[in-house]
């Protein structure tokens, strides 16, 4: 078992990398090469697909839009979740358990169920096709998750810390921002990572709530796929570029990932 155990993760990672490799390799091929003959790596290496994306505003604005609402969502989610998580981890109050479970049930709501009502709601309040609309809609599943993660991390901080600070004459806001938040930095990082991740990968709501001005890159891709026929190389290049922000974010939180995925509660 011991000597061969490295084989299992290696094979698994190879399996994970194969479709990604195929996507990247396709993004450097010409349409002719893709449709013409089967090649394992690009024979006529081309950057044309990437050039199209970086010069055409409908393409690159898609990235700007996606990153804008994802960032906005992460900021909103973590900011409102911080005090709530503190309340859940430190105090008991009327209906706390029910409230916590109710919050989590929103994580279970199928986006397909909410797509149409969301469209009507955000049109009615005049936010349709703005970053804020998508950012707010994504809080539906990100805020519960952020509260859940942060609560786990906060419960790991001994309550003596709070008490000592009050004895030392700290007011609550000063204690919270100066002492408590630095103590759960890792938790905030992990919560932000999860909010970023789920907002970045979601498409159904983001697509429903936008038309032109805030359209996410993923929606631009589906539209191109259907309108301009079979431009697989372009599609592959756009897909490759959507992997990059995620990869950067993973790199930054790599040391917290294991603990974060356990939501701090192990």
């Amino acid at each position, binding site marked *: *078992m011991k000597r061969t155990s490295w084989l*299992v*993760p290696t094979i*698994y*990672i190879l399996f*994970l990398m*194969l*479709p*990604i490799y*195929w*996507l990247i390799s*396709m993004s450097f091929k010409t349409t002719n090469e893709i449709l013409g003959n089967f090649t*394992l790596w690009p024979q006529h290496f081309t950057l044309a697909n990437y050039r199209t994306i970086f010069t055409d505003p409908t393409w690159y604005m898609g990235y700007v839009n996606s990153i804008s609402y994802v960032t906005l969502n992460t900021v909103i989610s973590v900011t*409102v*979740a911080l005090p*709530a998580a503190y309340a*859940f981890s*430190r*105090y*008991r*109050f*009327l209906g706390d358990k029910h409230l916590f479970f109710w*919050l989590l049930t*929103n994580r*279970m709501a*199928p*986006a*397909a*169920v909410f*797509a*149409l*009502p*969301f469209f009507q*709601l955000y049109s009615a309040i005049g936010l349709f096709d703005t970053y804020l609309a998508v950012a707010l809609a994504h*809080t539906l599943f990100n*805020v*519960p998750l952020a509260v859940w993660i942060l609560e786990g991390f906060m419960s790991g901080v001994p309550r003596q810390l709070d008490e000592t600070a009050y004895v030392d004459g700290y007011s609550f806001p000063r204690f919270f921002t100066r002492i408590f938040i630095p103590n759960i930095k890792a938790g905030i990082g992990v919560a932000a990572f999860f909010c970023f*991740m789920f907002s*970045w*990968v*979601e*498409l159904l709501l983001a697509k429903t709530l936008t038309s032109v001005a805030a359209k996410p*890159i*993923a929606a631009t*891709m*589906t539209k191109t796929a259907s309108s301009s026929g079979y431009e697989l190389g372009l*599609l592959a290049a756009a*897909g490759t570029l959507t*992997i990059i922000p*995620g*990869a950067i974010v993973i*790199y930054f939180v*790599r*040391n917290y*990932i*294991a603990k974060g*995925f*356990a939501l701090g*509660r*192990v």
Partner: protein
Amino acid sequence: MNKAVNQKAWFFVLPVLVLVAFNAIVPLMTVVNYSVQETFGNNQFFWSGLTWFTDVLRSERFHASLTRQMIFTGSILLIEVPLGVLIALAMPRKGIWVSICLVLMAMPLLIPWNVVGAMWNIFALPNIGLMGKVLNDLGFDYNYTRQVGDAWFTLILMDVWHWTSLVVLLAYAGLVSIPDAYYQAAKIDGASRWAVLRFIQLPKMKRVLTIAILLRFMDSFNIYTEPVVLTGGGPGNSTTLLSIDLVKIALGQFDLGPAAAMSLIYFLVILLLSWIFYAVMTRNEEW
């Protein structure tokens, strides 16, 4: 832990409450509203009571997509959970390889869902995709756009590719939290590899595995984008899962009443199954 009772804590929860209530209750009420009314256009609505609910519950179409959904969710849970635990057990515990493994494994989780679908679409194309071409060259008659079995195989393989890492990362987090003393004690007692797994590792992973199974269950039940991009629900209706069917009814045919009733039944099924599972898994612990 005995926490202090403090009703003022409600003020801390208030922003979350307002935000989530706005996003959850208003749309949910809209759905409830549609589900009990009949419309003939022109924004005229008539009370229809529970007709839509009984219609949906009796319709064969709903039964068929619910069955497909159950088969899908059941299969991916049966594959992803044991596979995830196996991989987590085989992972290194220390050194630089830990970070490399974790970063590479987390990659699929951060790819937008329609890109996952598109990626598998081109990966599995029978004539120009790597997997499709290789399978056909090996003598398999593989074509996921024509053959139901192949479509299901590709769909499940895609989900295993996409989400097994979540189980791995959670199980791994559970494993590294087991103190060394447990293993030393097991060694002194001469416990077999199997006994260590059965009596130390699995019980210690119970909490994270509960989270993993719950998340996988909820998310696979809600899956929409990936199968739509991969197979579009086809061939025929063979991979039309619940979400896909719902969107077809609501936005394709604009049958708001039946779609709303179906949404609510769908949501209740998820809630009920999650709650049963959660209650069973945590029945011996206080939470």
